[in-house]
């Protein structure tokens, strides 16, 4: 794929915004290829968190002083930015959480807890992260509902026909990942949502791996809920988002009780606040939320199309080079794929690769990537995984593959 000058990104100037990437470890420049676990943070995010604590620190919403006003304004501005970023109808549909896991737990508890009856079914796919498995197991057990698994093919793609066969009048909730953290598969979520709605089921999309790479349009997707994390899209850890359609959020019971989420409290009767506050009990991660706004600005300043194009080129280069290694066994070869490569090398344990690459200052991830059922599906103990972000360069890919080849020769 050839890019026009207009589509090319200036990676070297982008890298200058990430001080963490400038360091050397064990005397070698850091090559960070663990972006699906978390991305690094640009200076704008780091400085904003510092600025908030230096200038504006205050609790939000109820304060009658200048600091509280400034903190509240900055916090609520992020809500508006997030709504714009994912094309939600209104900022009230944006709930701040601790992260994707927290968002999914909220939906499982509030939606699952209120609509699931014995014998009802919840569908998830075989490639889900544990965060999109365990909350549903818990709620299904409580409600005596049944958790059903949508199978995938050898390439790591959802089997749509099997999914359609699983759909029935008993299906009440479908929760699937937009982009798999292990396989990189981009799932056909629009089709899944549309088919689910024909049966009257509600759909939650786990978008943790999608928001840093793809333009998300919740209106066009028509999903009922969309969950993602700040830290996987250049933002701070400990802050996440749950998008939900207004009518659904208004109808759902709260997830947690506490300050912020109430209108009036007495010992006999409590009335709840409006959305989104009904779902934001307690003092939130104010600094994190404010920092997330800068992360969104960072992504928008480059443009998601440019980010996607750059990462596609990186992915293609890495895949092509890795494929030349004898015994290279990729896991996840979907036609629609994000910048993640999970693999094994015949005769070499991924754990050894991880440790030895780390000694060469190349950060990758090894293990089951919180997708143990997926490992079982592919009959592997674990994989090595490299995942790329906008600041990764072709030189880093070359260095990684060259180092890997060298290690494989030694280890075999």
């Amino acid at each position, binding site marked *: 794929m050839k890019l026009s000058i207009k589509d090319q990104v200036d990676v070297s100037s982008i890298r200058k915004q990430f001080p963490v990437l400038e360091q050397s470890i064990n005397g070698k420049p850091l090559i960070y290829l663990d972006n699906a676990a978390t991305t690094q943070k640009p200076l704008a995010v780091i400085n904003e968190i510092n600025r908030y604590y230096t200038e504006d620190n205050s609790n939000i919403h109820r304060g009658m002083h200048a600091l509280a006003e400034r903190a509240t304004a900055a916090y609520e501005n992020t809500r508006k930015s997030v709504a714009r970023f994912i094309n939600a109808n209104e900022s009230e549909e944006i709930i701040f959480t601790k992260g994707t896991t927290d968002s999914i737990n909220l939906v499982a508890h509030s939606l699952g807890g209120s609509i699931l009856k014995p014998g009802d079914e919840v569908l998830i796919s075989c490639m889900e992260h544990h965060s999109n498995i365990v909350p549903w197991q818990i709620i299904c057990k409580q409600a005596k509902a049944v958790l059903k698994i949508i199978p995938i093919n050898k390439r790591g793609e959802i089997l749509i026909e099997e999914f359609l066969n699983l759909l029935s009048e008993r299906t009440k909730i479908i929760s699937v990942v937009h982009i798999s953290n292990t396989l990189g598969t981009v799932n056909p979520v629009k089709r899944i949502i549309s088919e689910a709605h024909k049966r009257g089921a509600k759909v939650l999309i786990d978008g943790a791996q999608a928001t840093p790479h793809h333009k998300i349009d919740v209106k066009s997707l028509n999903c009922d809920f969309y969950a993602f994390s700040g830290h996987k899209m250049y933002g701070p850890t400990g802050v996440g988002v749950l998008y939900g359609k207004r009518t659904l959020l208004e109808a759902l019971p709260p997830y947690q009780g506490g300050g912020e989420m109430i209108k009036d409290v007495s010992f006999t009767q409590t009335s709840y606040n409006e959305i989104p506050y009904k779902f934001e009990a307690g003092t939130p991660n104010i600094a994190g939320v404010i920092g997330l706004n800068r992360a969104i600005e960072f992504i928008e300043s480059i443009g998601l199309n440019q980010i996607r194009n750059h990462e596609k080129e990186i992915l293609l280069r890495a895949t092509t080079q890795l494929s030349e290694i004898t015994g290279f066994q990729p896991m996840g070869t979907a036609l629609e794929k994000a910048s993640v490569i999970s693999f094994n090398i015949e005769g070499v*344990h991924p*754990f*050894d690769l991880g*440790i*030895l690459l*780390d000694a060469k200052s190349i950060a990758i991830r090894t293990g089951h990537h919180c997708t143990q059922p997926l490992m079982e599906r592919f009959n592997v103990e674990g994989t090595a995984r490299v995942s790329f972000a906008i600041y990764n360069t072709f030189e880093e890919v070359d260095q990684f593959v060259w180092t890997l080849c060298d290690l494989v020769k030694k*280890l075999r």
Partner: protein
Amino acid sequence: MSIKMRQEEIIGEFKLLESDLEMSINYLIELGDQLTPFPENKKTDDFIVKGCQSKVWMFAEDKNQNVVYNADSNTVVTKGLVSLLVRVFSGHKAEEILNEEIYFPEKIGMSRFIGSQRSNGFSAMVKQMKLYALAINIKEKK
């Protein structure tokens, strides 16, 4: 050589590598290569050490009232780690193994090259070795 002396010997060897991470890991892999071959028919769940992220198999025998360990792993780095423990404990009396504390991992900065989470797996190996020693000790006293 006592258990303590063997630990000191290991500490001395890793000191020579001057905290070079790559050299330390390569040395560890070399040590693993020198382990006595582990019988393939014993690579079963009965001999697996529980609590390790990678697979570690181990058994112990009583040879002339000394405990002799045999171990293996499906990863070369872990094999190197377990080889250090075999070297420290093997050939000693069960009671000595039960009474001695393992302190060399901290001195050689082991968590630096295997990560703190995998250090738990290392503790599981030590525990398993002590359990084998305990079983042999009880058998000897009978």
